[in-house]
């Protein structure tokens, strides 16, 4: 039994036990500046494609129905929900995930602010929070905390780290 995970082979690549292989469709996705030539079942969401096929697991699956925001990524610089997006609809798009934002050695200012403000507890929603917060910097948003809360309402945090999340975002906004 092969146990090595090869991210270049899609979950639908062919075998007799896997009839979905017959309907897998080729696609090239540009993720964090790198081209990925893949074969995906048409039903594959961008979220599952990023996590399972391309093996970038920074993007999280929460509700899978557009209610929690954990799967937030950027498409052409705008924040969207990858769970309600089809992978096949995104060829030619510039897709950015948490892995494309910063590294442990060179964090994005928003990542650094989340650290400094302790803007998480369990961390599961944090990737989506940070992706949402970075996109918010380029959206019409009033200066007050209430405006930030309103525009961040699509990102749920079960631990209730909201106060520190708002503080982290405001710290970055005041600097730029």
């Amino acid at each position: 039994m092969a146990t090595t995970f090869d991210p270049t082979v899609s979950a639908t690549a062919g075998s007799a036990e896997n009839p979905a292989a017959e309907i897998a469709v080729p696609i090239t996705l540009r993720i964090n500046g790198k081209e990925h030539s893949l074969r995906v079942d048409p039903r594959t969401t961008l979220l599952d494609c990023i996590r399972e096929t391309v093996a970038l697991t920074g993007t999280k699956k929460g509700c899978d129905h557009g209610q929690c925001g954990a799967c937030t990524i950027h498409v052409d610089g705008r924040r969207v929900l990858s769970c309600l997006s089809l992978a096949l609809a995104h060829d030619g798009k510039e897709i950015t995930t948490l892995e494309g934002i910063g590294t442990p050695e060179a964090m994005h200012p928003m990542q650094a602010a989340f650290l400094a403000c302790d803007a998480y507890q369990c961390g599961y929603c944090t990737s989506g929070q940070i992706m949402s917060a970075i996109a918010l910097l380029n959206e019409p948003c009033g200066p007050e905390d209430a405006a930030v809360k309103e525009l961040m309402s699509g990102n749920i945090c079960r631990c209730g780290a909201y106060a520190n999340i708002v503080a982290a975002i405001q710290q970055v906004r005041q600097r730029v």
Partner: protein
Amino acid sequence: MHIFEFIRPADPATAINTAAQARTAQQGADVRFLGGGTTLLDLMKLNVETPDRVLDINRLRLDKIEDASDGGLTIGATVRNSDLANHARVLRDYAVLSQAILSGASGQIRNMATTAGNLVQRTRCVYFRDTAMPCNKRDPGTGCPAITGSNRTLAILGTSDQCIATNPSDMCVAMAALEAVIYVEGPRGSRAISFADFHLLPGNTPHRETVLEPGDLITHVTLPPPIAGSKQVYLKLRDRASYEFALASSAVVMKVDDGNIRDIRIALGGVGTKPWRSPEAEAVLAGKPANAESFRYAAEAAMRDAKPQSENKFKIELAKRCLMHTLQTAANG
């Protein structure tokens, strides 16, 4: 999820011809247009929607907002809700539309959801979304468990004994008040549909929600020229302050001259089976003084035909107060 073929039509004509092969453009459609996917993909995961073919219309160049020659505005079918809400002319001339859109969903969803998609947004009735339950809208003839069940958030206007599902859209409430016109291209040519005629009451056919037929592609929506000097307000009341559907909402476009109401358009959300224009409330207010007494009569008129269910009688009072407050805010300028 039901397996489907993903197709990206090269032009609107191809999209229309392919979609025209569908049995229906309503519930149970075997061909669906894909816009933002925020409703469609959600319902496909729930097996409420099971199309065999999904037509991606996002690259058909229907994504422009342009000044119309009559002074109005033309909004392409795939214009994203966030782009529409933040457009300079919408902010200036159609503020009620901007307010309504920004009161709905989340930043991410507004970046995805399209104008045309919002027009055909589906109800959030929990029975409709759960294929283990009967639902006349999803599966005609199986019954409506909401009438005797969980109906706190459901409709009090336009209901039938077959369906009491609420139309969830905020955008549509503002467009109803603004008298938007919906432009459709279909197998037999193009046509314009007034906003009031686009959505259907459930009656005995709750699975039919709009007048769209197979192959009908919404290409754009137009807004008439703004009423000079009018005040526009959208107010939405809900269980939490953000990212929640309306329990009651009101869109008001009002022009007051010397203390009297010259022009008035009122639409309600969260209470109707379709985006609810209220000619009854408008008739009460035409020519009357813009004061609290007039607004109270208008609110009474708007709710005269309301038919509450076991859990949502509170909506009648809530909707009245919502409308009175919206009218007063507009009057205050």
